[in-house]
């Protein structure tokens, strides 16, 4: 029982972190049709920038400076890069961001070195918030929930309650119409791209010391964020949110499952021997296949419902 409660909390924290990354990506993807491969790199840049700012000024300053910096980088990428390759079609844009991913990874390695940097949780938040059945729940995880929850609320308010949100939502589905009405659609694109990068940077600031700040952090988190976006569906923040939480929970809960599918059916009196290939697969315990589950779910989703959980367009 206690395992379930603790895993629920941890799964939620991880899910919220995924959401911070995926929300920006899904907005960019659904609005501009660009699958931004460099999105996780911005997350990494956010973590490294936060590490440097923390050393120079302090963590609280980093919490503001690093995301703003990432937003600015995002805006620059959109204006000077994406916009120029845009007329060559989506493949060119895709390749452009794919190249950026490698440049960022190599750049980070050259500037900060190949080894992890000691970006640590600020001392003010480095204590146990409460204890659940003898296990500490670190205050920093609570802080992460606070930040990501606050972010969720503010994007939702921004998109549904303000004029700019109205235009963004309109541009998501009818860019030509919005343009005809006299709105500057390219500027809306830049805003959304910069906003997405801001969120990724913010995720980097709070995720960098929750995990480890190292040059591989982008490639480690990148694929799962794509899974979230595809699974959640295009153009739907709600779908993205639900998908993030589902993926966070899957990754946390699959670990604690010791039984396999074979054990499950054994309960019904059917025993599966592990001497053939299929039998062997069915006998692998859940904790060992867990990390593959998100990808399996994504494939299943694409087969059954290509538009994703709550998407309004096909992927």
């Amino acid at each position, binding site marked *: 029982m*206690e*395992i379930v409660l*603790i*895993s629920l909390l*941890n*799964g939620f*924290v*991880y899910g919220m972190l995924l959401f911070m990354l995926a929300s920006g990506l899904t907005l960019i993807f659904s609005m501009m049709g660009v699958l931004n491969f460099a999105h996780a790199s911005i997350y990494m840049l956010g973590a490294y920038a936060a590490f*440097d700012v923390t050393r*120079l000024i302090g963590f609280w300053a980093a919490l503001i400076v690093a995301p703003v910096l990432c937003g600015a980088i995002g805006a620059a990428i959109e204006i000077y890069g994406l916009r120029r390759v845009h007329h060559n079609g989506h493949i060119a844009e895709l390749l452009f961001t794919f190249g950026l991913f490698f440049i960022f990874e190599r750049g980070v*390695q*050259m*500037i*900060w*070195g*190949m*080894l*992890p*940097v*000691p970006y*640590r949780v600020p001392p003010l938040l480095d204590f*146990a918030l409460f*204890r659940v059945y*003898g*296990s*500490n729940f*670190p205050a*920093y995880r609570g802080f992460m929930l606070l930040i990501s929850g606050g972010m969720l609320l503010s994007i939702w308010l921004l998109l549904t309650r303000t004029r700019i949100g109205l235009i963004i939502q309109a541009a998501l589905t009818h860019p030509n119409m919005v343009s005809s009405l006299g709105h500057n659609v390219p500027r809306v694109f830049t805003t959304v791209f910069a906003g997405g990068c801001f969120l990724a940077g913010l995720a980097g600031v709070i995720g960098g010391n929750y*995990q*480890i700040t*190292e*040059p*591989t952090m982008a*490639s*480690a*988190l990148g694929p*799962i964020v794509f899974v979230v976006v595809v699974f959640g569906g295009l153009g739907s923040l709600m779908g993205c949110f639900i998908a993030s939480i589902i993926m966070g929970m899957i*990754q*946390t*809960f699959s*670990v*604690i499952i010791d039984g396999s599918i074979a054990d499950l059916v054994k309960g019904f009196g059917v025993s599966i021997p592990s001497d053939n290939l299929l039998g062997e697969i069915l006998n692998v315990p859940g*904790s*060992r296949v*867990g*990390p*593959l589950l998100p990808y399996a779910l994504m494939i299943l989703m694409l087969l059954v419902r290509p538009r994703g959980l709550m998407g309004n367009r096909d992927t």
Partner: protein
Amino acid sequence: MLKHLRRLIGAAIVLGSMLAIPVAQAQETIKIALIAPFSGPVAPQGDAFLKMLKYAMDNVNARGGALGKKFELVTFDDKITPSEALIALKSVTDRNIPFMIQCIGSNVAAAMIEGVAKHNARNPDNRVLYLNCAALATELTEEKCDFWHFRFSGNVTMRVATLVRGLPPEVNSIYLMNQDYLYGQGVAADTKKFLAQYRPDIKIVGEEMVPLQRIRDFSAYITKIKASGAQALITSNWGSDFNLLIKSGVESGLSLKYYTFAAHVNGAPTAMGDGGGDRVVAVLEGHDNMGIELKSAKYNAWIDGFRATDPGFDYPWINFQSMFDMLATAITKVGSTDVLKVALALEGMEVTDLSGKPSIMRKDDHQLLHPFYTALFTKPVKNESEKTGWGWKTVNGLSTADLTFPTVCKMKRPI
């Protein structure tokens, strides 16, 4: 920030000068190819290995190299994939480089053993010798052993034996966590074998095989370990699988001892920080404070020389020095770089390692036999690890003789 900028400019200059190298080749050298991951997720390891190997090689060069020539490393990127490594091997043999070092990834090493054996059988005039400095799966010198492959690093079995015999008597319940591939599976199997043999009183209360470098949050595992009531965790996880595991464990306030195979490897002390202090034990061949413990001027000078280059990590692999010492001795002895002659000279060779203990290259399986130690991450120590304030202190050790296990290797010899 300024420091980073300077480093960036430095990197640019280095890059620029690298492009200009082929112009002048000062004198003839003995080339050694280094095939390692220099890009991709394991690039930090490849980069660190290059620095450490180069330092050991420069030491031999400072003593005059061999045959009046200096050694020179030529690097090839294998991205830690067997297919890329085989392509690199092709370039090595195309350039007639007689010696090849490949150390990271036992799966890559298995492919290299086969690749080298095939090449040498087909091209007796252009052979290459495989010097393995850290691919640790025991099979490589057992079932898969080959005449052209020499392993200059203690295998999994030797490491696990050191760890199990170093477990304090009060430990009686243990949790195992290893990565789900050749190396991790080998550690798991050997741990169970040695626990049954040396410490039948210890109960294994749980076991995990985690997918390689896939898990981003280990808190669920920590919860499971906690529920099992284990006193200690034995883990061969390395890279982010180790760093994130320790981080989650420390954050959750779990009072647990970690017995590890990789906590001393570059990057891990930084990731552990204060959380790993007095809690983490590592199995290692040497560490930065061992020279001080042994009062060995030679070892101290060697470590101080490396630390003076400000590499940003420790140098535990003292067997790298033994490898270059042995290679130089063998080449000097036979008077040429003929691969077959050098290989025969390496067989059965004995050198004294930096700690003053014997290191023997066993003829039967080409496995280096040398001592191993367990050390605690503690303070105060003279040489701290990666500016954490903490460093390694020897707890226990097994001698070369203790770690000489029988081999099942049936080697096909060319003569």
